[in-house]
Structure formats: C-alpha cells, structure tokens
C-alpha cells in the first residue's frame, strides 16, 4: 500500500466507520497498514477514538443540516427518519468542491428516488439540480 501522510490518515478515520472500528481495537496495526512514518505513527496511535467519533459525527451532522435546509419539502416528508436515511446515504458519498452541499442534496434526492422513498416536489428536485450543476438557481436570479 502507498504510504500516506498524517492528515490523510486522520481524514480516513473521519470518513470511514469501518477503519474507526479497526483503529479502536488495534491502532498500531492500522498505522502500519497505512504506511505512516514513525513520527506520524506515534501521533496517530495516540488519537482519542472518542474525539474521532464525535468529530466524524459532527461532519455528518453538519452535512445533514446543510442538505435539510436545501430540501425543506423532502425533509418534512421524511420526518424523523430523514436524519438516519441521510446518514446511511452520506457515509458512502462525499461530494467535493464549493458546490458540495448542493451536490449532496441532489445526490440524496436521487438516492431516495432510487429506493422509492419519500421525496418532495419535482420543483424541489429541479431547483437542487440547478444549484448542483450551476451553483445558482435561474429562477432566483
């Protein structure tokens, strides 16, 4: 496996739940597998798994708040299940770039549609698609 730097290793822990489980049980083995240098490995194995888990949870929670604001109709229809469904979708999907929240909302709607789950109006889908592809919504401008 290609060696990685400490920031990349921390990033992996923050977005990969399975790696967090492995790290909790055998941090040294994970450090070796990631090919960290001795100095990075020393810092890595001392990371607090509770702090990592809370930080990881915070990342998903912030994403959910951003997405929920963009798709209020869908969020209302999903009710209490919305957050859990988003978590299921989001843990394997990490959009990149400055439109990531729009892309996240669009991808979440596609995920819901693919799984025949509640979804807001076609107009909401259209608006989010425009935001994801252009960064702004033609109607508002």
């Amino acid at each position, binding site marked *: 496996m290609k060696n990685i730097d400490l920031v990349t290793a921390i990033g992996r822990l923050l977005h990969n739940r399975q790696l967090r489980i492995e790290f909790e049980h055998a941090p040294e083995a994970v450090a070796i597998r990631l090919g960290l240098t001795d100095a990075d490995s020393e810092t890595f194995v001392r990371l607090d798994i509770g*702090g990592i888990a809370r*930080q990881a949870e915070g*990342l998903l929670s912030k*994403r959910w708040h951003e997405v929920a604001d963009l798709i209020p109709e869908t969020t209302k229809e999903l009710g209490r299940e919305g957050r859990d469904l988003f978590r299921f979708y989001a843990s394997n999907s*990490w959009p990149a770039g400055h439109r990531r929240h729009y892309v*996240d909302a669009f991808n979440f709607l596609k995920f819901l549609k693919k799984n025949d789950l509640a979804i807001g109006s076609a107009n909401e889908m259209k608006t989010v698609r425009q935001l994801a592809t*252009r960064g702004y919504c033609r109607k508002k401008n």
Partner: protein
Amino acid sequence: MWRLGVGYRGQFKDWIATRPAEVECLEITAEHFFDAGEQLLQELAGNYPLYVHGLGLSLGTPGPLDRKTLEKFARVARLADAQWISEHVAFTRTSEVDLGHLNPLPCSQQSLDVVVDHALELAEICDRKLILENITTELQISGNLSETEFLNRLCSEAKCGLLLDVTNLFINSKNHQFDAVQWLQEIEPQNIVQLHVVGYSKSRDRYHDHHSNTIQADLMELIETVVHYAPIQAVILERDQRMDEIEEISSELQRLLESIEKHRPRNGDR
C-alpha cells in the same frame, strides 16, 4: 479604530440594503460568490468595507493548494476590494476526500510548515493581508507545540494575523477543560486582528457552535476580556440559523457595541 459588522448571508439582503446604522462592515464568504453574485458583491463593496472569508482552501492539507479554488478566491477578494482576507487553521480535505467541514491539525512543526507555506501563497496571490481563524473541534491532536505557540509562530512566520473566534475558544475551553483566559494571554495581543462572535449551543454536557443563539453572559465576559487585551480592528457577529430574526440580530449588535466600547482600552490605557 475598530468596526462592528455581520457575516453577510443572502437572507440579510433586504436588511443590509436599508444600510442599518449598527452595521459598519461586512464579512462575506468567498465560496458564496464563486459562481454568481458579482453585481451584488460590487454593490456591497460600494457601501461597506468588506472582509473576505474562506471555508474550503484547506490550508492544512499537505501538497499544493487547489489552483481553481485559489483563483476563484482571489477573484472574489479583488471584486470585493477586501480590507483583508481570512481562512482557517484547519483541513477540510485530504488527497482522497473532501470532508466538507473544518478539522483540526496536529500542533506540530510539520503542520506549521504546511500552513505557513499555504498562507504565504494565499496572501501573495490575493495581494492582501491574511488572518487565520482558530476552529472548534471535538478532537484534540497532540503535537510538539502548544496550540498558542503554534498560532504565534504561524502569525510570525506567515506574516499573518489571527482571526480569533471567541466562541470557538470558549467552546473548546469547556469541552476540553482548559482556561480560556490563560490561553488568550499566551497569544501575542498584536496578532489578534478580528473577532468572530455568536452565542454557543449546549446539548447534554457538550458545547457546540451552531451559529444560532444570542451571546450568553459568560461568553460576553470572555469577549470583554479579549477586547481589553488585544487591539482588535473588527468584530463580526456570525449567524446561520434563525436568520429572519433581524430585530434580535440588530439588538445583539447594539449590545456588542456598548460592551466592547466599555471594555476596550482608550489610547494610552495599556
């Protein structure tokens, strides 16, 4: 001279268009203007001193900065005629994934070198003074430097200033159990250029930064300590929830003005 203002959001457009007396400056988020809004940006720049704040440059990620993001950021700073620019002491992405939000760096020489190089590059490309913000974090990563030593050296080596988020300092001091005032006193006062403030949120035993609440008394006390300690040039009230509560936001600005004026040293006072 110092200025008081808000973090500009689209929801504030009508309010800001009325030129409220309590708003003396605006901080705009660079990413909000990457795709559109050039005309609005120029209107805002015509009416207010603007500070341009970035969220996604990920200055702590080893390797080159993302060229496209850097160019877009520089363009916004130029259009805004920014008084200064700001980003975070953090990483938001790695070579593998965009985590989308701010994450802490180890306080190590290695991280310091990465952030210093990126900070110098950003300031040079934007041709403006850069200030960097402390983040709130659930994760503390050990390093061979203390956080305050890291920040002082960063300011010195990158020739930048500190955007002290007082709410983040307060939250971290509660969640990680350290003395916020002692932390503050370890920072060189002249490094602190601007403040971010907003009330904290609390659920169970953890404190959070949801940009939602009015400033609580214990947090206001820390803000007063900061403005007495450091020659700040701007204070920005952040708000990302309950955006329609304009009267509340306006009265929060008034509270801040009175409180800061009361505790800020006059010339020759320090």
